């Protein structure tokens, strides 16, 4: 039997004194796809980076194990040998296409660099090769794109450029670290199709790292499930998905958001109504900054939310979902009438508006950014109460904080701890507690689950559903994840370019979408998961 292309044996990685990866072993043959799956922090990316020896040494160490690429040891290999391998024999695609491209270099230079270093191509030959590559990864008008800078490209195009860079020297192994996580669902699909197509054509091996089991199921020949820095199960694709052996694998597979929203009574009062909401950003040109046009982030949207009801707002990124949410809360300037419990938010005075904020709250997407790292959890939750209920005694305040924490399923004694000590899911619970403690009528949830792992997502969905039932909350649920929206929403608004493409009840939208755009979103959602 010939030696495998890549063989990782008992790999271990320490960061400082903290063991991060232990006993990771797998092999990868030419033309094969192996997927590493697991939740964030399970050591997938660290494993991938150790193959290229790209970890921050000497903070990171390998107390044991070996990584053999075509039979040659990579751990501790001299820098010269590593640079020969990197980018030439092994290509890598990173998760975040914006930060992995140098913002000051054109596309031509980004891709040309690796050709220059490894192949010693001159400008002319390199340009021909770059055009070929751009064509290969499906970028239209490659000649024009040569001179573009990363910020002039869309997310999908950037990821294609990244792939072109990784493929430039026809590597034997391509490592794709969450290649589609930062992209819209519809674009995810295209990129994945591109990757599997390229793998077949070029006969590469692919090491795919993902937390998304849908992607893995579609792409991988074999799957390795990682948890806490170890591989807990390794099996062929069909075996893993049909007969998962390890408990954790089963948990991962079961972690789909389930359930449907119960219908609400016809008599439920309207909490929030918005009529013809518009948010236009002026485009100014010339010396005198004349307004020549507008970017219509939100363009004439009508919306009603009733008590106990969830409205799902879906659409690709850039469709104006978040802007709509911020406009309804009057956190950004907008036009159009907004009524909260019959009070016109547009006409109330600034101080009155601050009083009304008690009834409408928001939970943001990124639980790491939405909590002030300098505040303890108790302070985070108390902040709103100090504004809206300044007369509470210290004991009452303490009791309210404790209740809020209990309600979102956290230990009330954790109030003196700081955000960095909590996981993403726990932080999102804290953000929900901060909103809930004011007893709002309306909660705007701006992608509250998209920064979280699948299994945590379903817990948050369950929590949100329970809270809604208990307090008859009205939710405006903004998401690009149609699976979660389906599990939570009563009605759905599909947005594109600031306008409503389609709206209706969950059943109607999912079973009888009338617009092609909606159909595409639904397909993409069920394809990827």
């Amino acid at each position, binding site marked *: 039997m010939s030696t495998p292309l890549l063989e990782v044996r008992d790999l271990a990685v320490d960061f400082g004194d903290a063991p991060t990866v232990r006993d990771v072993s797998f092999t990868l043959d030419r033309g094969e796809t192996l997927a590493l799956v697991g939740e964030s922090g399970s050591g997938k990316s660290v494993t991938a980076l150790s193959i290229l020896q790209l970890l*921050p040494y000497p*903070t990171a160490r390998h107390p044991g194990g070996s990584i053999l690429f075509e039979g040659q040891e990579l751990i501790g290999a001299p820098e010269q040998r590593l640079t020969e391998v990197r980018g030439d024999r092994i290509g890598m695609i990173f998760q975040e296409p914006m930060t992995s491209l140098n913002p000051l270099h054109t596309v031509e230079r980004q891709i040309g660099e690796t050709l220059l270093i490894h192949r010693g191509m001159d400008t002319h030959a390199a340009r021909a090769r770059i055009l070929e590559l751009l064509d290969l990864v499906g970028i239209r008008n490659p000649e024009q794109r040569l001179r573009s800078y990363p910020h002039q490209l869309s997310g999908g195009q950037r990821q294609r450029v990244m792939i072109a860079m990784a493929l430039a020297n026809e590597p034997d192994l391509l490592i794709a670290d969450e290649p589609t996580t930062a992209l819209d669902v519809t674009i995810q699909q295209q990129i994945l199709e591109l990757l599997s197509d390229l793998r077949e054509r070029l006969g590469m091996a692919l090491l795919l790292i993902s937390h998304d089991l849908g992607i893995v199921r579609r792409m991988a020949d074999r799957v390795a499930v990682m948890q806490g820095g170890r591989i807990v199960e390794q099996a062929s694709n069909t075996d893993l998905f049909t007969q998962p052996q390890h408990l954790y694998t089963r948990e991962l597979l079961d972690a789909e958001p389930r359930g449907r929203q119960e219908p609400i009574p016809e008599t439920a009062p309207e909490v929030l109504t918005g009529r013809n909401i518009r948010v236009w950003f002026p485009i100014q040109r010339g010396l005198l900054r004349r307004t020549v046009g507008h970017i219509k982030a939100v363009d004439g949207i009508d919306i009603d939310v009733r008590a106990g009801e969830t409205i799902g707002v879906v659409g690709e990124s850039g469709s104006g979902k978040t802007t709509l949410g911020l406009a309804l*809360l009057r956190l950004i300037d907008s036009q159009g009438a907004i009524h909260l419990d019959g009070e016109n938010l547009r006409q109330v005075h600034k101080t009155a508006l601050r009083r009304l*904020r008690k009834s409408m709250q928001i939970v943001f997407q990124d639980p790491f950014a939405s909590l002030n790292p300098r505040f303890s959890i108790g*302070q985070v939750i108390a902040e709103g109460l100090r504004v*809206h209920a300044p007369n509470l005694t210290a004991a009452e305040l303490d009791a309210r904080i404790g209740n809020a924490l209990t309600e979102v399923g956290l230990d009330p004694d954790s109030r003196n701890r*700081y955000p960095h000590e909590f996981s993403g899911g726990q932080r999102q619970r804290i953000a929900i507690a901060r909103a809930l403690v004011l007893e709002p009528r309306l909660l705007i949830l701006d992608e509250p689950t998209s920064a979280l792992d699948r299994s945590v997502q379903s817990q948050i969905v369950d929590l949100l559903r329970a809270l809604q039932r208990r307090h008859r909350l009205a939710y405006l649920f903004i998401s690009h994840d149609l699976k979660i929206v389906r599990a939570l929403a009563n009605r759905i608004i599909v947005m594109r370019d600031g306008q409503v493409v389609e709206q209706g009840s969950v059943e109607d939208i999912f079973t009888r979408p009338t617009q092609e755009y909606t159909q595409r979103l639904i397909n993409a959602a069920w394809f990827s998961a």
Partner: protein
Amino acid sequence: MKTDRVPSLDPTRVDIGSGVNSGLLIPFPVRYHLNPINQRRWQQFQANRRGWWSLWLFMMLFVASLGAELIANDRPILVSYQGDWYWPVFTDYSETRFGGDLEIAADYRDPYLADLIRQGDGWMLWPPIRYHYKTINYALPTPAPSAPTADNWLGTDDQGRDVAARLIYGFRISVLFGLALTLLSSVIGVMAGAVQGFFGGITDLLFQRFIEIWNGLPVLYLLIILASVVEPTFAWLLGLMLLFSWTALVGVVRAEFLRARNFDYVRAARALGVGDLTIMVRHVLPNAMVATFTFMPFILTSSITTLTSLDFLGFGLPVGSPSLGELLAQGKNNLQAPWLGITAFVVLGVMLSLLIFVGEAARDAFDPRKQGIKP
């Protein structure tokens, strides 16, 4: 190794004060203990050994110079005369108190007075340097400026005043001036930058144009012109230089506020109905403080340098004040007396170097990239 120094982030050890709720700005309980972030910064600061020792050395020099009257003075600290104790450093006594004839302030350096006290079974406890910065030594071996002797450790300047004494007082006035200027211009700069960055838009635009014009004013000429009209004093100079030095921090603070006002947690606070001022102070300001604290030691050095150069040019503190710049100018005018120039140079060099080292350590302490890499 750096990672070894990262302190434990044991959550249970972080105390926060009790939940007392009072006051106007809806204050949070003040934290008396360093939070984990600041603990780590403090350790980072200590990890820069050069900066850490520089801080100690500078603090020692500064504290010592604060008590300059006890180190270099033309009156004794303590006089015992006929069984009574006197404190000439703090109180003025007339000569008659010690058995003299005239109702004039006692001149303790006068052998006549020393005799009187000795006759009254008394003794005097002198500071190590028996000269005040104003004291003129009339008993010089050579014409002023005279070279270092056992009496005048660093020689005298061209008016016969002891250089060592003037140095100690000059150091104190330089540092005090620098600190005052730094503190005041930081406060004004942070406020101005905060308003610009937080509100943005037209406020920001107008403010920035104003600062650009303001920075275009030729400060030195203005100071020279004003110095010919009014006799500059410490407060005068401070105010005048403050007019132009507060813009130093505006840029960084403004940038931090511009960045931070769109943070999710700032949005969240706004959605909670928290007022602008509270948001600025509680959520955004701490972000800007990192940049401010990093800059402050460097503003301090530049303040000291500015004062020194004004003194050097003769537009600084009033004539006769102890000042390093004036000593430097004397050194330049009396090249035959190298102790003047060398002394001033060494003291300025050491002081500014120490401050730069402290500033470097502070910069390290606030550098998030130095805080170890998390897996």
